[in-house]
């Protein structure tokens, strides 16, 4: 009896302690290290940076180097990469919303039996390989790709459409890859919508389109925010899509970070890029979190 009484609080501590320690070590601590490295300077060494703390003559010297951040602000390459990332992510999110909203709306309006199948059809592509889905577009939109060769053999165009290696290709890739993540939260929101409100509106003489703008759209705000954040946040840091579909002119910050790290081996600048990207994303992440905890509370 005594033993089990002792075990109880230990069990609680164990249950919360194991995932807590794991996440502290492998999720929270790494960010602090990134922050630390972003303030050190590059060195030809292994690992390729200089320590911030020096222990010399029994005093700890502390050398903070903000040079990496100054570089990020001075060099137009980084500034334009950030601006382009936000622009590309924003426009792609907008396209996802334009395409995804009617899709979610149609699924939510379909008979309950069909809804699960339609939802599965939308989600299934997002479960297959991300890399492969981006790759699939390479064969379609390149200068000698299927779209261009077909259009040229039909005589519709004389010169190949230049899609590959442009921002347009990146938009297509992001919308294609992230569309299911827009549809899912929108559907979850729209399906819960109180139909009686729309019926009341139409009984009172409101036209369908008008009641859509004044009732459906405002009530699905939560779904729009969640879906948009699920697309926007990963799109800002996207690496695979700009690397494979975008050209040298469609710079995005995820790609720049990758190049700084793997090609230039400049770990401090890569870390500083990551920190600035995080700062940029704090507001969208907070927005998403607030929505998510609210739906969790509503469900429980």
């Amino acid at each position, binding site marked *: 009896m005594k033993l089990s009484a002792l075990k109880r609080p230990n069990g609680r501590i164990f249950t919360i302690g194991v995932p807590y320690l794991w996440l502290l070590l492998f999720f929270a601590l790494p960010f602090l290290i990134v922050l630390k490295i972003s303030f050190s300077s590059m060195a030809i060494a292994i690992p390729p940076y200089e320590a911030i703390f020096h222990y010399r003559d029994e005093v700890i010297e502390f050398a903070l180097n903000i040079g990496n951040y100054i570089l990020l602000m001075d060099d137009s390459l980084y500034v334009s990469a950030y601006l382009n990332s936000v622009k590309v992510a924003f426009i792609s999110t907008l396209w996802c919303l334009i395409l995804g909203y009617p899709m979610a709306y149609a699924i939510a309006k379909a008979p309950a039996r069909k809804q699960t199948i339609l939802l599965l059809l939308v989600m299934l592509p997002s479960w297959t390989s991300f*890399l492969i889905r981006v790759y699939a577009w*390479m064969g379609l939109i390149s200068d000698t790709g299927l779209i261009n060769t077909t259009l040229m053999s039909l005589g519709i165009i004389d010169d190949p459409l230049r899609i590959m290696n442009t921002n347009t290709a990146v938009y297509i890739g992001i919308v294609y890859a992230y*569309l299911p993540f827009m549809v899912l939260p929108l559907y979850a929101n729209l399906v819960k919508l109180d139909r009686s409100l729309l019926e009341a509106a139409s009984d009172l003489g409101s036209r369908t389109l008008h009641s859509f703008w004044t009732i459906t759209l405002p009530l699905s705000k939560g779904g729009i925010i969640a879906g948009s954040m699920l697309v926007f946040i990963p799109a800002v840091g996207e690496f695979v899509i700009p690397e494979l579909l975008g050209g040298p002119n469609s710079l995005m910050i995820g790609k720049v970070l990758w190049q700084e790290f793997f090609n230039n081996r400049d770990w401090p600048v890569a870390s500083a890029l*990551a920190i600035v990207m995080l700062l940029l994303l704090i507001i969208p992440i907070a927005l998403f979190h607030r929505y998510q905890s609210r739906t969790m509370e509503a469900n429980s």
Partner: protein
Amino acid sequence: MRKLGFSTIMLWVGLLFLYLPMLILVIYSFNASKLVTVWGGWSGKWYAELLKDEQIIDAVFTSLAIAFYSSCMAVILGTMAAFVMTRFRHSWAKMTLSNMITAPLVMPEVITGLSLLLLFVHMADLIGWPTERGMTTVWIAHSTFCAAYVAVVVSSRLREVDRSVEEAALDLGATPLQSFFLVTVPMITPALISGWLLAFSLSLDDLVIASFTSGPGSTTLPMVVFSSVRLGVSPKINALATLIILAVSLVALIAWYVAHRSQKRSMARINEE
């Protein structure tokens, strides 16, 4: 009425947009011609060639092993976190845990990958481990981000199940451990299975985080695919892509089916009551 027509058309346009590129890729993987845009008749030779490629076969086994161990760890971590999120009293520790566990869902992969790599480098410096990056470091990285997805799946199931059964078990003298394994686990098994499968397919598919955290001897399949895809489209990669699409969607379909069936059952049970 007209608006309904519009959204239905958009739904089919959207589905066509989602499936057509992959369908074309699958068709072209059977193309006999070496030129990717010229159709030279049906052939399965690229599949035969795939099987001869040792680098690809090695990578497949590395990826499968990492995905297996990662999804197991992710289920353990994710379930514990989900249990804390749904069954524990509100506290500061619970709040920070639920924030930390779901954060990887929206974290750009390059940041997660970079931060974990820097951690491993620091750990090697301070405690001498890991001496070399490889399967273990990728396993840690994948377990961490997959646990987030498992936690979401399992916690939504934990919210649904009837808590009075657990309470009854505790009242009748079961220890919390007994009540969890004998009462709670059987009720959430479908969620555990679909969480495991989801984690498995996520780990199998990850390129960015694996690229940061892996070492010389642990090249995963997406890393091999990526390095050849960078050079352009090739029929052999089309064949590999077809197999990956098939395998991953099969795993995903099973995961969906398991979750869907259990949801249906519990709905039926609620309706009976």
